[in-house]
């Protein structure tokens, strides 16, 4: 399987703080990759490299290469960043629907990117809500505010919102950490479904979850990538002592 994303010797500094240290890693296409590690080790920072979200934070310096489909996304022209972000969907820790109707939340990405065909938008919204396993629950209240949904529904709506513009990569930063077990289960099922079409990178603090949903796992510690490999291998037979300590709950 080829690597969808590849980082080569990536270093990231927030001002004086060295947040990512020499990270080299390839993320295979159409798979789920979990990033684990103790709080503050740089998982989110790493994830946010792929849609250049870190650009928004002042005084951030990035060196090294981040290749997406072989192209270094930190070398592209500024006017290609929108296209990059359309290709890389993102789901956040807390459900964060926009202050709009359910329908408009899903249609948002289409509209801001210049799609005006009404029937196409309607079709796309319905299709994505089906994909996110939310359609049956919201089909009668598409015009209602998205804030009226439950937390779990909101998070699936946010997934639908990301899917609506048909990215090829989905980044998820602790997507289920604010949800109850049943909603978490639904999200995990969804990730499993989506894997066939998308390359998914998920940050999680939940070891069981990483074990359940991911094909590959990377373990981060203090800004460094300690170990990366098949999830089964990492969880049953890690090659580094730190990884074993973390997974067995001895720290972090």
């Amino acid at each position: 399987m080829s690597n969808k994303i590849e980082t080569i010797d990536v270093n990231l500094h927030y001002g004086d703080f060295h947040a990512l240290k020499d990270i080299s890693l390839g993320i295979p296409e159409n798979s789920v990759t979990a990033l684990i590690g103790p709080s503050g080790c740089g998982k989110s920072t790493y994830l946010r490299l792929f849609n250049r979200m870190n650009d928004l934070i002042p005084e951030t310096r990035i060196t090294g290469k981040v290749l997406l489909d072989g192209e270094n996304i930190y070398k592209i022209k500024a006017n290609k960043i929108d296209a990059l972000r359309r290709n890389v969907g993102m789901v956040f820790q807390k459900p964060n629907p926009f202050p709009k109707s359910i329908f408009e939340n899903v249609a948002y990405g289409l509209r801001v990117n210049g799609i005006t065909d009404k029937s196409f938008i309607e079709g796309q919204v319905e299709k994505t809500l089906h994909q996110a396993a939310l359609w049956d629950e919201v089909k009668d209240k598409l015009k209602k505010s998205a804030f009226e949904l439950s937390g779990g529904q909101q998070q699936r709506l946010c997934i639908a919102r990301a899917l609506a513009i048909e990215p090829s990569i989905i980044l998820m930063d602790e997507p289920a950490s604010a949800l109850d077990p049943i909603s978490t289960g639904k999200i995990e099922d969804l990730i499993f479904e989506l894997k066939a079409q998308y390359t998914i990178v998920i940050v999680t603090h939940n070891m069981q979850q990483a074990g359940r949903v991911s094909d590959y796992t990377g373990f981060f510690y203090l800004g460094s990538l300690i170990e990366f490999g098949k999830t089964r291998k990492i969880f049953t037979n890690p090659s580094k002592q730190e990884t074993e300590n973390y997974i067995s709950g001895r720290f972090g």
Partner: protein
Amino acid sequence: MTFPESNDRRKKIGQAVMFGLSKGISYGIVALLFLILFFIIKQGIGVISWEFLTAMPTDGMTKGGIFPAIIGTLYLVGGSMLFAFPVGVMAGIYVHEYAVSGPMKRFVNMMTNNLAGVPSIIFGLFGMALFVNQMGFGASILAGSLTLGLLALPIVIRTTEESLKSVDDTFRQASYALGGSKLYTIRKVVLPIALPNILTGLILAVGRVSGETAPILFTVAAYFLPRLPNSIMDQCMALPYHLYVISTSGTQIEASRPIAYGTAFVLVAIVLIVNILAALLRNYFGKKVKMN
């Protein structure tokens, strides 16, 4: 999925235009402030002289100085703070240290908010009805100071409350742990820490009070009184009222324009000094007290 490429360009252009517009408007507002200040300073600075600040007005207020207005404003500011400062600080202490949540605190907060939102002319009406008439002070420095004090009260309460909020709870707990009573803790531990911020609030209140006109219209202000007040039962002139009368009424508006510019200059200078002082104090003590 394919997206129209032209849209990305349109987004860029739209953003550039709107950002430019917002920036332009913001700097425009700042420019407007400087325009106002510059205009008044430019027109007024030529008028300012030692004599202007220390002489009585003469020739139907077209010549001479504004000494009695300056002194009157000093009296009024002093008098109002004499009332608003102790009462406001104690009220702030009550709200933050004693009224532990519950409906009472909500009520007091709501009333303070309401009081802060009452237009200044209403204070003028009220001061006239209560202090001038009911209590029989007549139009006097006493009545005017009390009226202005009421107006300043919510400002002092708010800033005191904010200042107390910024005092870390550990100080209080440390004092309690050593057996200090509540009042003792407030007096010896909390207040000294909060004091710089409270003082900043006091300075800002002084700035506000010194420029208020509507509350003193009927409670104290004298149109023309070329002498200094003898007692707190006297009327007096005041800077903001002086500016109002010489720029709007009387028969010699044109002739008294220079005096008006000079008076406006003094008022603006007070505002600038007060704000700079507050900023310095804030920077010096490193904590911010918020007004409004």
